[in-house]
């Protein structure tokens, strides 16, 4: 049980960091499909800078810097040079996947994976009794998750910036009338996305592990995007959606471990989280639709 909770949190944390980060862009009207790439870039840069400097915090700072630069370039392309945000976003992801592997090879002479010299502190480790057992071996970033969620909620739902971002994405005409600089607001949103994806990547590579491996995001960026949509572009619901996906993954893991006497092919068990997501999305869509059409 405790292990199950810990697993859920650990699998959810990167999704929540990336999902809430991506939320800024999506609310500003940018369907940011490059999140997957930014997460991977964050994971690699943390390990690279961390290993080079010997400090995990400098590693994370480096990752943030890298992601801010990448986000700025992406913004430049789609806002200033009229590039298609989906195609450029897919390109950004591919570039990060290739770039991380290439640089790992060029800088550290490693292929495929490398171990990290640094790792995030884990405030509570080892077998624990009582409540502490639910937080054992969580990285400091995972501990800070509630604070992070609160900050995101504050920024998006209780700040002027949040109002401006929402207006820019939903009804640019309002932003224009209010004298909000639309380009600039988008840039800010995208930079925040980059920053959060750096944290998501760091949690992946030095949260539970101390290693980077090519493709270690393994589609988690896309799942984070799904969490945003699933969460109706709301911070709290996006967090819950991230937890749900982490939970689904944890259930998949546990169903393997405690499978018992089932003769159902395992692939079908592994499909459960995906099918569950579809069912949720469908129910929510149907419900929202009903409410909209007033019956």
């Amino acid at each position, binding site marked *: 049980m405790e292990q199950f909770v810990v697993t859920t949190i650990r699998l959810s944390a990167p999704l929540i960091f990336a999902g809430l980060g991506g939320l800024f862009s999506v609310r500003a009207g940018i369907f940011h499909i490059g999140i997957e790439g930014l997460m991977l870039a964050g994971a690699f840069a943390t390990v690279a800078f961390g290993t080079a400097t010997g400090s995990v915090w400098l590693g994370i700072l480096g990752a943030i810097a890298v992601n801010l630069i990448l986000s700025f370039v992406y913004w430049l392309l789609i806002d200033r040079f009229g590039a298609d945000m989906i195609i450029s976003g897919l390109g950004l992801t591919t570039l990060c996947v290739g770039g991380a592997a290439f640089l790992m090879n060029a800088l550290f002479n490693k292929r495929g994976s490398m171990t990290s010299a640094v790792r995030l502190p884990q405030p509570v480790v080892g077998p624990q009794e009582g409540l502490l057992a639910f937080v054992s071996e969580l990285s400091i970033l995972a501990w800070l998750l509630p604070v992070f969620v609160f900050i995101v909620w*504050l920024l998006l*739902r*209780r*700040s*002027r*910036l949040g*109002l*401006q971002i*929402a*207006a820019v994405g*939903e*009804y640019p*005409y*309002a*932003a*224009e*009338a*209010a*004298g*909000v600089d639309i380009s600039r607001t988008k840039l800010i949103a995208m930079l925040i996305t980059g920053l959060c994806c750096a944290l998501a990547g760091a949690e992946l590579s030095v949260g539970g592990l101390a290693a980077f491996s090519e493709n270690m995001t393994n589609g988690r960026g896309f799942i984070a995007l799904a969490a945003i949509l699933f969460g109706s572009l709301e911070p709290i619901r996006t967090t819950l959606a991230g937890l749900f996906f982490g939970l689904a993954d944890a259930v998949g893991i546990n169903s393997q471990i405690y499978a018992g006497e089932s003769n159902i092919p395992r692939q079908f068990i592994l499909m459960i989280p995906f099918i569950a997501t579809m069912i949720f999305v469908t129910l929510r869509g149907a419900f929202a639709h009903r409410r*909209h*059409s*007033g*019956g």
Partner: protein
Amino acid sequence: MASAEIVLRCEEIAVAYGDVQALQPTSLAFEAGRIHALVGQNGAGKTSLARVLAGIIQPAGGRYWIREEEIRESSVQQARKLGLDIVHQRFTLPPNFTVAEALELVSARKYAGAFYSYGALRSAWLRELRRADIKVSPSAKIRDLPIETNQSLEILRALAGQAQILILDEPTALLSPGGVERLFARLRQLRDAGVTLLLILHKLREVMAIADTIAVLRAGRLVLPPTEIAAVSEQRLSDLIIGEGASVEGPAGATETRESDKTRTVNLSLAGVNTRHSETEPALAAVSLALESAEILGIAGVEGNGQRSLVDVLTGLMSARSGRVELLGQDVTDLKHHQRRTIGLRAVPFDRVTEGLSLPLALWENVTIWNAENFRRSRFGPLKIGAMREAARLALEAFDVQYESLDQPAGSLSGGNMQRLILARELAQGARVVIAAQPTRGLDFRATQYVWGVLRQLRQAGASIMLVSSDLDELFSLSDRIGVMRGGQIMAEYAPPFDMQVIGDSMIGAAR
């Protein structure tokens, strides 16, 4: 008066959108503490001028001053700092925001710092709402509000910033007669408190009722600088607006003779129809009506009283909960819109830009797509694009649409020409039953006359027309009968001669 202070001054201000020169270099000045009207046909450049003054767009050339201060780099903030605000022609409040959030975002008055507590924001704006006597919860979603409330919120958010110069771009377009009067009363109060007002209006009657001075733009040029209202005649004004020598058909009452009762048949009827309530409107409650051949049935009412549901249920865009709909003798209660079209129903939607035509698609596509099946080479064969274009060309010519190429996107047409295109599509092939919803909203005088002419001709040819409009002048001059909608019901039906006072009272439910 002549020595009054000048609060707004333009020298050679010009506006261009790409290659479109919306406003030629224009110089004019407005005096403080008065109500100035700015009039002109659609596309004359009124909004463009206003948007420059409000700091939303940069002029393509020229200089201008707000309260003696020359504006070099225009911005909304700068204009607001100098006490100038604007109520836009389109709504600026984001639909998914709550009232408090939307006002906070768009208004110059800010109650929140970088961060805010929702409770505090709510109560701050609740005070403003109370002060302005707007009965709406600050937590309501903008999209759930009736249009009139939305309009008052727009004015509230502009005034909340303590504007000393207030520009209102067509503020009356969506208001009921009572609403217009209340607005005008409020504007006079403001003027008396020293606020300078610049109103962009279309109806001369309204201009005469409120303005102190009037200026006229025509095709991007100032043809009359701000002039005392008493100094110009209505006849001269309409000449200035439309252009010298353009002949204008004056509004006429329903004077044409109608066919005798015997030859008339009921073409469209509702019997005891109920619907579900929608987001913005009450449900229809036991609505019955009958529309005969060769008649125009006008539907009056304050917006949001079920007109949309009525149109939707007649067109089949919404299904009735109970009751019966008949079209040309057929029971169509359970038929969808496309099936009703096949039987002979045509509709001119409420909003030409979001419902009437697809802005990115070409003109010929907008005209022909809906019945593309009729242009196939064989039952399952490919389309004859040439024939489609030819049909579109004929229809556009028949309705006198001004265009350059059949391939130009519909979004590049002017408002009046957009409406003509819609009429061309809906009416080209001898329509028998037509629902026309707000067919002249936002159109200038000449375009309005044209649309009216088309509707009259149709009636002459024996068609049944239901005309839903918030413009009583329009209803009075076209309708054979007028039904008044209130709260999802047809409250009363009137025959000519129509009495403005009676019908106006019926719309707002005032007892007399």
